[in-house]
């Protein structure tokens, strides 16, 4: 049903290029395995069987930045780790997006001191912030769906 009705006799579908590219980007967005602290455990729970993230296209988590599109910064970023985060972000090929998962990545969280970067947006540009300490796996999935909606609305002139 559906697609075959629109195909007509010649088997041709017309659509806008933007819609097509955005749709394909959202449906197979692979995150990079970048769990730092407690939020990483909730990210692993979101990937496991109960709150399955592979329903949303995130079947695998790639440890290599060269093979991933999405960096979920899960956990607190310390001052020693900040250059490493930036270097990994630079190694990811375009198009790339960043989700700041948890309070520590969004704004420094409970820890307001010399050792923690107050919000990972001082180091990498962030697209979606997910609040919680740690956010429930459902909250993370909501953040991912929000990111998908944001990507769907991207315009051709903003593409990388």
């Amino acid at each position: 049903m559906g697609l075959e009705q629109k195909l007509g006799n010649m088997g041709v579908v017309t659509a806008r290029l933007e819609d097509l590219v955005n749709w394909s980007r959202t449906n197979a967005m692979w995150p990079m395995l970048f769990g730092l602290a407690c939020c990483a455990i909730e990210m692993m729970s979101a990937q496991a069987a109960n709150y399955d993230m592979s329903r949303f296209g995130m079947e695998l988590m790639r440890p290599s930045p060269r093979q991933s599109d999405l960096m979920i910064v899960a956990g607190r970023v310390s001052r020693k780790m900040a250059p490493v985060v930036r270097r990994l972000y630079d190694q990811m090929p375009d198009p790339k997006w960043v989700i700041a998962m948890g309070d520590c990545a969004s704004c420094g969280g409970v820890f307001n001191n010399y050792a923690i970067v107050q919000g990972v947006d001082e180091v990498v540009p962030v697209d979606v912030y997910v609040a919680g300490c740690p956010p429930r796996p459902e909250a993370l999935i909501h953040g991912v769906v929000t990111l998908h909606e944001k990507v769907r609305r991207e315009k051709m002139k903003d593409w990388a």
Partner: protein
Amino acid sequence: MAQIEEVTLDGMTHLVSDRALQGETMLLNMGPQHPSTHGVLRLLLELDGETVLNAIPDIGFLHTGVEKNMEAKTYQKAEVMSDRLDYMNPVGNNLAYCLAVEKLVGLDVPVRAQALRVILAELQRIASHLVWLGTSALDLAAMSNFMYCFREREMILDILELVSGQRMMTTYIRPGGIWRDVPVEFEAAVRDFIKIIPGRIDEYESLLSKNPLFIDRTAGIGKISAEDAVNWGLTGGTLRGSGVNYDVRKFAPYSGYEQYDFEVPLRTEGDVRARYFVRIEEMRQSIRIIQQAMDKLPMGPVRSNNYKFVPPPRSEIGTSMEALIHHFKLWTEGFDAPKGAIYSAVESPRGELGVYLESDGGPKPFRVHFRTPSFDNLQVLPVLTKGFLVADLVAIIGSIDIVLGDIDR
């Protein structure tokens, strides 16, 4: 424009042998972001082909400054930070901190609160060992175990959410008792869980214990003798895999552990496989403790009634003037602890978790130090991996069961 920086050895040149600096052996950086290091741990490996000659750990990528930050908060507010140290065992961290505060101040905890603390701590121990099993088996490419372990862990997190409202960082255990009494559904939920879990642990064992691939990858790997283990300061499952009978729950019992009948599993080989068996058996003994605690659970209050240190129940605030004044003082200033220093330890799933707490008479802790087990357990890694392959290194890191939040604090 991206700057190309020269990668230096960051002050570790004196630890690297001359052969490496001349290029005979290879220096490999197993960097902070790696799927098998269980957190942000950097290892500088010196390799001769595939054999590891030296593995130098570089830690500090998760340093949070908890000890200094706690000095700026009152005793009650500082407890929130203690959850987030060893993030696999937040209930145990709360318990360690609260026992230290109670020892410093001289507070008594009612028996019902002690029994509930034991039940929650043992549930947390099972949850932590499930994650250990899932992730270390995942490193050895046993992926289905990971999915099964997380399914059981969800049951435990459901119980914690039922009791406190939060899955992981509960802060349910407070100085003087626990936050509030457990709801009626708690008993049914825990009993259902302990009926199901022994069968599930048998399932995991059937996948791994007699599997020839698993045996090849873990038997004889990463051995350490009992004396060396004690001298290097190992505690927990890593030490008991070498045959030393040291468990803080039996050595210096706290929170009523002396009334429960359980064994401390020991193995003598000291390799990765011995530690695996020790932790599986620890899960079974935890189930025994929970069973006994649920059967003996006494009735009574769940918080001490010393309102100088413990907040009064909210129902009394409307009717009693003293309760209102105590509540006001505790929330604005906090309580004053007597001047002195104590050390108190609990058994976390990783080993001896100790808290050194010193007070100068004021409402804020003067110095808090956490003696975390993973800090000492990781120190022995170069000794354990000398002469083994890189693939064995991954198995050894998994068997030591480190959590980087514990190490870097």
